[in-house]
């Protein structure tokens, strides 16, 4: 019998060189500038938290795939590393190791593997882990070490300070030096402080086409517009747009977490809807909610709506829209 030379496959037939591995390691590279800044400000603690988080995430994924699913393990495709890094970036730098491990178990075990692993999880694993920890360990998760340059030996681990958003939530308007906030010299989670480092990573991701501009622009634009309206109404009570964008996890969330391919809408239009929703909910929680920061909650809420958004924003199939035929010119 002749060899069957005709290979039949589903479209698309054009293959690019992309793979899960390449995308995930691009994200890891994009996160490195922010990681370096956090090492500069938090020293060995930043390395400790990040390493524990990555190792725990990979270990949980390996254990589940090896012993529960009894299938092949995919821990080196990079997705567990990205989840681990993002989880570490979302917690204070002085967190106890066992809390980080619990966060990793929740992120990988509950939010990712329960739904069937990479590609099937409706919620961003790292954010589920972070929110779980935030609700479970409120005091440990909101004790922020004050950033100290690494050579500042006399500064001890015990020095903790408030975050800009925490102060805002208590009703204090603070005059923050925007340059400090831009570089990252403010209290906050491990990797969320430095706007410049996060932006460099974001530009890298845009160039590598790992993310598109839609979600970050929609999230940050909506946050700026909404907070500008509030600020315009009463500048003494509400913070200005630049503050909202630089403070807290706005940039980290908008560039790295909301853009997660698995949990964000598929079309550009859908991404804009999704981003606008995240922006509005974030400012709502920051302004009127009991938590100082609402980025992670906003992303989770919009993650839940992604199937609906995908349904609304279906692209028109080729040939579906028929142009009305031109009226024949009467002679």
């Amino acid at each position, binding site marked *: 019998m002749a060899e069957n030379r005709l290979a039949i496959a589903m479209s698309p037939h054009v293959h690019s060189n992309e793979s899960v591995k390449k995308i995930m390691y691009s994200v890891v590279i994009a996160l490195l500038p922010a990681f370096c800044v956090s090492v500069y400000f938090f020293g060995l603690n930043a390395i400790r938290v990040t390493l524990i988080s990555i190792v725990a995430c990979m270990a949980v994924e390996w254990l589940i795939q090896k012993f529960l699913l009894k299938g092949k393990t995919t821990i080196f495709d990079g997705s567990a590393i990205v989840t681990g890094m993002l989880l570490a970036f979302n917690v204070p730098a002085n967190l106890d190791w066992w809390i980080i491990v*619990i966060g990793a178990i929740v992120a990988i075990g*509950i939010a990712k593997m329960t739904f069937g692993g990479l590609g099937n999880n409706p919620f961003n694993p790292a954010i589920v882990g972070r929110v*779980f920890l935030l*609700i*479970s*360990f*409120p*005091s440990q998760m909101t004790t922020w070490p004050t950033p100290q340059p690494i050579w500042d030996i006399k500064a001890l681990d015990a020095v903790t300070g408030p975050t800009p958003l925490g102060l805002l939530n208590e009703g204090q308007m603070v005059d923050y030096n925007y340059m400090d906030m831009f570089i990252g010299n403010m209290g906050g989670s491990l990797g969320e402080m430095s706007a410049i480092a996060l932006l460099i990573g974001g530009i890298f991701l845009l160039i590598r086409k790992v993310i598109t501009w839609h979600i970050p622009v929609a999230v940050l634009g909506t946050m700026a517009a909404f907070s500008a309206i509030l600020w315009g109404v009463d500048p003494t009570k509400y913070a200005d747009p630049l503050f909202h964008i630089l403070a807290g996890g706005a940039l980290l969330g908008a560039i790295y977490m909301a853009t997660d391919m698995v949990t964000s809408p598929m079309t550009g239009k859908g991404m804009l809807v999704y981003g606008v929703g995240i922006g509005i909910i974030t400012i709502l929680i920051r302004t009127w909610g009991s938590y100082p920061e609402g980025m992670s909650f906003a992303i989770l809420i919009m993650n839940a709506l992604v199937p609906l958004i995908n349904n609304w924003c279906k692209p028109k199939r080729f040939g579906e829209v028929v142009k009305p035929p031109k009226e024949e010119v009467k002679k």
Partner: protein
Amino acid sequence: MNNWKNFTKGFIKENPVLIMLLGCCPTLGTTTSAINGLSMGLATTFVLVCSNIVISLIKNLIPDKVRIPSYIVVIASFVTVIDLLMQAYLPGIYETLGLFIPLIVVNCIVLGRAEAFASKNGVWASCVDGLGMGLGYALALMILGAVREILGSLSIFGWQFIQADGILVFVLAPGAFFGLAYFIAVVRRFNK
């Protein structure tokens, strides 16, 4: 013996909350600790046994068209009995369970057993069925409550074994959903 089967099926094979997914609202709402889960389960058992007996006794008197309202009247009377009894003799637990005791009236398990079993079977069989189902429900609630209590407040039946804060989320509503989901998953895994 058929009665033995009627009794034991409520524990694993037809467990109301783990297999049939009935009565999830009180399951999620009251299992913040093992004691709360157990007392809720036992209160439901009482109502279940009594209403099953009465409904199987009067099943031939009830016109078919109004059977659901009639069942509800019977169930509601027993719920009122247990409500007042708990208020008088167990004020502490009554206080914690609060609204969930009156809500036993609309618990799907009680109405479901009345409709599916008591209205078709004899008194003794209905009584045994109600007892088995109720105790199976109480067992599931107690285990879920114990797991949530151990993880959430590091204690069991009120006895604190480590003086520290637990994983707070397990005492709150999300923890109930996580706990119930994984409990059901584990039971299904071993019940194949």
